[in-house]
């Protein structure tokens, strides 16, 4: 059973003295006399994996949503229309949870991965090609793109489960890993050339 860590933003950085509840941004003190010692844990980002996973998944989802919106008016295969509709709903719900998680973590307001191409995402050019396609040609482009998105999300969620720390993030990663795996089983087989 997961327990909530805190209701307010969780301190992202644990200073050498240990984690304490965040207040105002820390005032830099005089240079630490321990500069010469191994300061490996001094102010490293404790929730780095959780934050990176949530930011990246959110960015991946937002890019995928752009492709889902193209399906209804272009697809030949009715199953894809159904799938895209369901995925759009589930991705929107996930995004709300991801944003709440990022606020909980105390991540910066701006997602550093929004708006530029990351592995697993349909590139801007690919979205343009999909927009212009119709019927079976569209289906092929969409399924290929969707497979990459689903696979990357699944891989990232799996890595998150191995290394993440925040219970709420781990719970969401569990749900997303499972959902992506399920969606992958619903992809039509590759159409005949």
């Amino acid at each position: 059973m997961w327990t909530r860590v805190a209701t307010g933003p969780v301190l992202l950085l644990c200073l050498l003295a240990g984690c304490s509840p965040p207040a105002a941004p820390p005032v830099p003190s005089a240079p630490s006399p321990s500069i010469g010692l191994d300061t490996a844990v001094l102010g490293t980002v404790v929730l780095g994996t959780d934050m990176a996973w949530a930011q990246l998944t959110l960015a991946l989802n937002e890019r995928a949503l752009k492709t889902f919106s193209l399906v209804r008016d272009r697809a030949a295969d009715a199953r894809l229309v159904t799938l895209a509709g369901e995925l759009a709903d589930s991705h929107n719900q996930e995004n709300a949870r991801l944003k709440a998680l990022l606020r909980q973590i105390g991540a910066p307001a701006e997602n550093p991965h929004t708006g530029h191409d990351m592995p697993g995402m349909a590139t801007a050019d690919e979205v343009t090609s999909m927009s212009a396609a119709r019927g079976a040609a569209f289906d092929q482009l969409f399924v290929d793109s969707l497979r990459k998105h689903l696979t990357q999300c699944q891989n990232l969620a799996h890595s998150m489960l191995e290394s993440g720390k925040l219970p709420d993030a781990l719970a969401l990663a569990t749900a997303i890993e499972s959902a992506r795996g399920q969606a992958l089983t619903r992809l039509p087989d590759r159409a005949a050339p």
Partner: protein
Amino acid sequence: MKRAPLRIAAAALMLVASTLVMANPASAVIKVAEFPADCPFTHRLPDDPIVFPNLPGGSHSHDFMGNRTTNAFSTLSSLQAGTSNCNPSIDISSYWVPTLFNNNVAIAPSIATFYYLGEGVRADITARIQPFPLGLRIVAGSAAAQGPEGSRARWSCLHAGQVPPSGNFVTCPAGTQLESYLDFPQCWNGTTLDSADHKSHMAYPVNQACPATHPVPVPKLRQVIRWPVNGNPAGFRLASGNGYSMHGDFFNAWPVAAQAQRVRDCINAIVKCGANGQPI
């Protein structure tokens, strides 16, 4: 009559002595605060232990230099257990940049030099520059920049200084190499080795001094990368986008004493040193 040969001999002796003094002056050093680490390309992965820790494959492609072991799971301890191809080999830090592609073919850097400099701040501040703390992470430039805003990229051509530097890729003459210069922030907040956005714990100087928010002066890392490409840059792209998105990552794992010696003898003393930390 007999004094003339004596005077001639004395004059000759003084001439020889002064020639010897001129040939071996008390200080023959070059007065530039600098020491280098030459760290060639080692490996390529879609990993980033600073921005995507423990998320292998989450990043665009990076070319790694220096430490041979760097991947998504790297920590200071794991780097310290690794080896490096840097000259000097004791620098087991990890340096990485986005992969450069030419017509979708990945091109590894041919030369990668990391200069540790004392310039950029007043001389009295240079004199008290401190070594990078163990485990410090620094990100320079902006992977998201696709135009001048937010970009720190500077592209030019090795052996073709007549080509004006630009924030995006440039056309280098045949026989020369595309090169990138990138200066890292040189003022540290003194308390944390990283930050939530991986940038806020470092700052660039303002008016040749470190701001009050980031009061500790550390070396200015200048990343100079060359690639064996030239000509029409239309086919060039970085894994992060166009040339404006050039960036660099540094994960410090220098043994404390080795870096401290160089900072003291080369940067604080304003002496140009070689990779061995000795005056050139």
